[in-house]
Each structure stands twice: as structure tokens, then as C-alpha cells.
């Protein structure tokens, strides 16, 4: 991903700025989510102590459930971020795409040339075979006998 590789001038400046901004946003999201997960997990571990009044334990139970849900939601958010990155890679990986396209083009051109050469060779061989067969046929005794 060529994001933040440098600010150019001209039409790519806006694109580069947008890409940098997007990268910054994504990093923030990542940090938020991870902080969320860590924070909630810490709280979960902290309420492991068994208190005397059972009502406090019940209260902590509800809090633990809530924090667990928050953790899962943060993880889901991270996964969505990864999906977005994959989609961006699909649609923005121009360098690799171009390379691949060029490579395929060269391959196909070579194949086309090879096929042309092969066709030419086949043509030559068939012409030679035709000539040989014709000369054999027309000078064969069988034909001579037929015509006599």
C-alpha cells in the first residue's frame, strides 16, 4: 500500500493527502479498538475478587458481561478494518496489477509469435508434403496404368 509515501504535486497531491488522512483514521481506529479490548480485559480481571455482599457480586457479574460484549465488539471492528484493507489492496494495488498485466501481455505476445511460427512451419511442411505427394501421385505407375 503506497500510502503516505510522500506528498506530490499536481493531481496526486489531493490523492496523497486523502490517503494519508485515511491511514491516520485507520490507525486511530486500530488504537481505539485495541485500547478498548485491553481496558475491558483489565477490568474483567480486576473484578475477580469475591466480595462479601452478594449484591456486589451480582453487580460485578453484569459488568463483566457488558465488558465481554464490548471486547467482542472491538474485535469485530478490527476484523472489519482488515476487510477494508483487503478491499483497498484489491482496488488500489496498481503497481502489482500493472506488473502482472505486463507480464501476461508479454506471455501472450510470445505465445502468439510462437503460434505464428508454428503455423508458418506447419504451412511449409504441408506445402512440402503436398508437393511430394503430388509428384509421387502423378508419376506413379498406378496413375499411369489408370490412364492408359
Amino acid at each position, binding site marked *: 500500500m503506497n500510502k503516505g509515501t510522500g506528498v506530490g504535486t499536481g493531481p496526486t497531491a489531493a490523492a496523497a493527502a486523502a490517503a494519508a488522512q485515511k491511514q491516520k483514521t485507520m490507525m486511530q481506529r486500530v488504537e481505539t479498538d485495541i485500547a478498548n479490548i485491553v481496558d475491558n480485559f483489565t477490568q474483567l480481571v480486576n473484578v*475477580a475478587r*469475591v466480595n462479601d455482599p452478594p449484591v456486589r457480586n451480582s453487580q460485578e457479574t453484569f459488568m*463483566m458481561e457488558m465488558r465481554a460484549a464490548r471486547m467482542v465488539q472491538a474485535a469485530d471492528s478490527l476484523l472489519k478494518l*482488515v476487510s477494508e484493507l483487503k478491499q483497498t*489492496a484489491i482496488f488500489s494495488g496498481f503497481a502489482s496489477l500493472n506488473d502482472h*498485466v505486463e507480464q501476461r501481455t508479454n506471455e501472450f505476445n510470445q505465445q502468439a509469435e510462437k503460434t505464428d511460427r508454428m503455423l508458418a512451419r506447419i504451412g511449409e511442411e504441408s506445402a512440402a508434403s503436398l508437393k511430394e505427394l503430388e*509428384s509421387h501421385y502423378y508419376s506413379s505407375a498406378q496413375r499411369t496404368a489408370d490412364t492408359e
Partner: protein
Amino acid sequence: MDGNLEISLDKLPVKRLDAIEENGAERYPPDSSYDEKGVSLIRRIDFAWAVEDDEERERKKKQKKSSKDASAAWQWQSMVENLQLAHQELSVIIDLINTVEANDAVTVAGMTRPKPLPNEVLSDLAVSAATKLQCYRQLGKYFKQSAKAFKEQIAWEARFYGALIRLQQNWKVKRQRVAASASSNEGFTIDLFDNSLYDLAAMCRPSSLSTIRVEHDSAGMLAINLTPNSCRSLHFGFLGVHSADIPKNTSKIRTHGSVEQRIRESEKESISDDDYVKETHTLLREVHQSIFNDQVFEMLNREAFNQSVGVNVTGIRENYLQLSIGQGNTLFISLMPSNKGDNQDSADTQNLESAIVPSHSFDTENKWVFPNRTSCEIYLQQIFHENAFVKEKDKPNLSGTQASGQSGKVEPSLLGHRIFSSIVLTELENVVCRVPYLHLMTHPTWHSRTSSWTVFMKVPQSILHAESQSPKSDFQNMKEAIKSQFRTKVVLNDDRINVEGEGAPNVVGLFKSSENICSVNKYECDLADLPVIILLQVASQVIYWLHEEALTVGIKTNRDFLCLTFELEQGETVSLVAHVNPGDIKGGISWWLVMEDGFAEDWKLQMDMHDGASDYRKFLGHLTLDVLYSTSMDLVSMCGGGRNH
């Protein structure tokens, strides 16, 4: 209550002196109010008896149960009993408190929890710890489920995006930025329309297959769903010719489609992702080819109605076009679904062929005259590709109409030429087959609208060997100058036949001093005249050769177009005359011996009349070159032995 009744005696409600002070004042206890009296009465209630009764009852019950089978005791029985007892006590206390409060006699000032016993403290702690542990276990299960779901989602996404990235290397993948949360395809499409056709794009309508949606299947892998029979292939044929290769074509394409269907229907999961991506590539390629075929057909439709091209549209239906080109040849081009069954396809083709009356019927013997169907289809596609794609890329200034116009002209000319060339070849072979000393050689020109053949007349080796063994060495030098083979070249450009031959006398030869130069004739002719022209050319070549042979032995002969005249002694002439008849089955060239002057009367007496020959002419028949050579040598010897040197 048991039998012992306890009685408590209250003091009489008489004011009794409480104390007397020194001063004689009497102190009486204060008068208790009504409430105080009630409270004191309540305080005097003793619940011990009830408690003791309950304990006795419990003991009895326990004894009863222990006397029963102890192993059958329910593990929660004691807890249930304890709870019942507690409930009973609580209900009594609550009733008491309610009664007290209802009577407004007393109010509950406060309730202090009794100090718990150590075992109660520990049991409470155990319960709390167990509850918390249970809570953590549930959380653990929840986390595991979530982790499993996330793993599946990651794997799904990895498969999907991996396949999509691989497809993207060969195809144009587009994303629709719409809220696709409800749909299952997340807005990806594959665009198969080639927008490099700048001019044709304006004329062509994009096919409905151009944009393909990428969807998910049940396993989460990407899937491309196409309607059946949406892929179409180009079919080319000549009317009246029942080609045996129709099933082959459809079976070839149908195999592809059936493979695809089989993969979709069953055992999908057992195929690896690589194979699945390859199959998807294949499917997309089929769709791409189908779009290309649609474009080719559209181009043909456009060009067919262009009068300058030289074709006439004799029939048109949906996805079917019938054209007549050249000399009454009729062909059809149709778009047919690739996945149709064998019988259905051939039935449709035959229906279409029989529904439209051909311009003239062809014999099955002549069907090989027509070019191969597959080669015509390939050529059509190649024309379109060259003119629409290659020219647009190489010469951006070239207008599309010009390119397509050229493409349109090429196709019927090629077909007409190929059909005509087959006919010309047939004629040439007919001629060559009947004359034993003629050889036909085909020259591949590698040009689609030019064909070339050469008809050789070869002097037999026996004659050449015999002459080379002659002791006359000076004639060997002359031998090198005599040709051993003569050629007649036939070139077909589009539908024009050019014949170029050597050996026949022409105007140029008249002005040439040396007779050793073999002049070349060039002229055009029609198909009907071609056999005659060839035979005439060959006959003149034979005459020329005999003339040269006679010259080598020192005899000068007169050579006319088809006649070689020997001057005998006493002024008589004997001529070898060639007679050309293309319709002669036994051979195209027959020979006559014509005598003139002094021999006329003798021949008149000796000749038989029943062969139809005149008195001065003798029919020699269809002679080989050996016989002709020996005949001419005989005539040479008759010309006079002294003239040999």
C-alpha cells in the same frame, strides 16, 4: 401442645405501693398505657414450645428416614428442609411484624442481623465464589464462541478475497459503493465489456452479460451465477450442405458447459480453491467469447446490408443471417447457445436450413468444394479482431467505419475465392488426370485471395537417357538447351483466372531470331475455357518439344500452333497435328497424321475408310510422349538419312 399445661399467674391489676419515701410520700408505679400493656403481653409470649415441637418433629422425621433406605436419600433433601424451616420462621416473624405494625402498638425499631456463624460465613463465601466462577466460565464460553465465529469469518474472507484477487489479475473487478449490507455480494462486479473499441462502442450496445455480479455461495466462496444458455457461439454453414461436424462443434462446447454444471451441482466443497478459481476463469472466458461472438455477429449484420460489399441478404431471423455471395452460393451465420443439447442443436439447424429454400441445390459430391466451416468461423472472428481491436490500437486515426467496411469486403471475397478456387482445382485435376504426361503442382501462396497451380509437362526419362547415350557428343551440348519440362502456370486472383504458359508460338517469338527461346504467353480466361486453354497450351508445348528434338538431329521442321510439319523427299509433307477435346474421356489431346501432295493417291488406295478419317489424314489416337517421340523420329528418318548431320 402436649398434656402439660403451663400456667402463668399474673399479678392483679391493683396498684401496689412501690416505695415510701421518708417524707411519707408514696410512690406508685406509673400507669402503663394501653400500648405498653400490649407490648408487655407480647413480650411474655414464649415461642420455645413451638421451636421445641419443631425440633422434635424433625428428629422424628430424620429417624424415620434413616430407618428407610439411606442410599435413596435425595441429596438436596436436607437443603429443602432447611429452606422450609427458614421459610416458616420468616413467615412467622413477618406475620408478627405485620400484626404489630397493624395494631400500631409497636413499631420495629431496627433489625440487626444476627452475627453469622463461621460456617455460615464460609458457606456464603463459597456461594459467592462459585457464582463468580460460574460467571467467568460463561464468559469463557462466550469468548470461545466469538473466537470461533471470527475464525470462520477470517477464513471465509481469506478464501473470498484470495479468489477475488486472483480473478482481478485477469479481469476487471469493480466495486459498487452502495449499502450492501442486505445483499450478500458486497457490491463486487466483473466488467467484461471492452471499452477499447472506441468507435464500435458507440455503435454496439453492451451485452447483458457484460457486467457479472460476484456473489457468495453457501460455503462463503465467491460464485458467479449465470442464466443457462446465456453463452452463445457463432455457427457458420453453407445451405444445402449437411455437415457432419455440427455435433462435434456443439459437443466440444457442451463438454465445457457440462463440466461447469457438474461442478456447481455436486462435490463443490471437495474441489480446491485453485481449481475453483480456474473454473471461474474458464466460465468468465466463455462469457467473454460469447460477447465477442455477439459483436462479430453484429458487425456482420451491419455490413451485410452494405451494398458495396457484394453480398445479398436472403434471409434474416433472430440470431440468424442468410447471405448469398458470388455465383449463387448461399451461406448462413447464426448465434446459438453453447449449452444446448446435441439433438436440439442439430434439429434447430436443420429446421432453419430446410425452412429457407436455397438458391440452388448442391450435390453431395460437390460439398467438398466449400471451405471448412470451422475455418470460416475462425476467419470471421479474426477479421473482426484485426479490424476492431488491432487497428484501433495501432492507428487511432483510422475511422471505425472504414475499418469495418474493409473487413466486410474481405469476407465475402475470400469465401467466393475459396469456393471458386476449389472449382478451378477440380477442372485442372480433370484435365491432368486424363493426360498421362501432365503433372499438377499446387503452390501455396499464403494469400487468402490468390491461388496458384502449375501444370508440368515432363519429357520422359527414357527419352532423355536414350539421347544422352548417343555417341554424338556435339548434340549433347544442344541437349542442354532443350527443355525437359514445360510449365503452364494458372493463377487465380479473386475470381480472375490468369494462364501463363511457355512453348506456344506468339507474336514475340516471331520477331526473335533464335528459335531456342521459349516464349511465354499470358492471358486471362473463364472457367469454362480453362480446360481448353490448358490442353491447347500443352499441345503446343509438345509440338515445340518435337520441333526441338527434330532440330537436334538436324532436321528442320515447320512448327505451327498445333502442327509440326516434316518435309519429306519429293516435296511431300507429313504433319503431326494435335486435336484438343476437353470432353474426351480417354484423354484431352489426340493426334492426327496428315499427309499432303504425292502420297495422297497411294493413301487413298490403302486407307480404310471406316475409321472416319479422310484420305489424307490418319488418326493416331491419344499418344504418350514416348510414342510421339518415336513417331517423330521415324518421320525424321523418312525426311532423309543424309540430313542428320
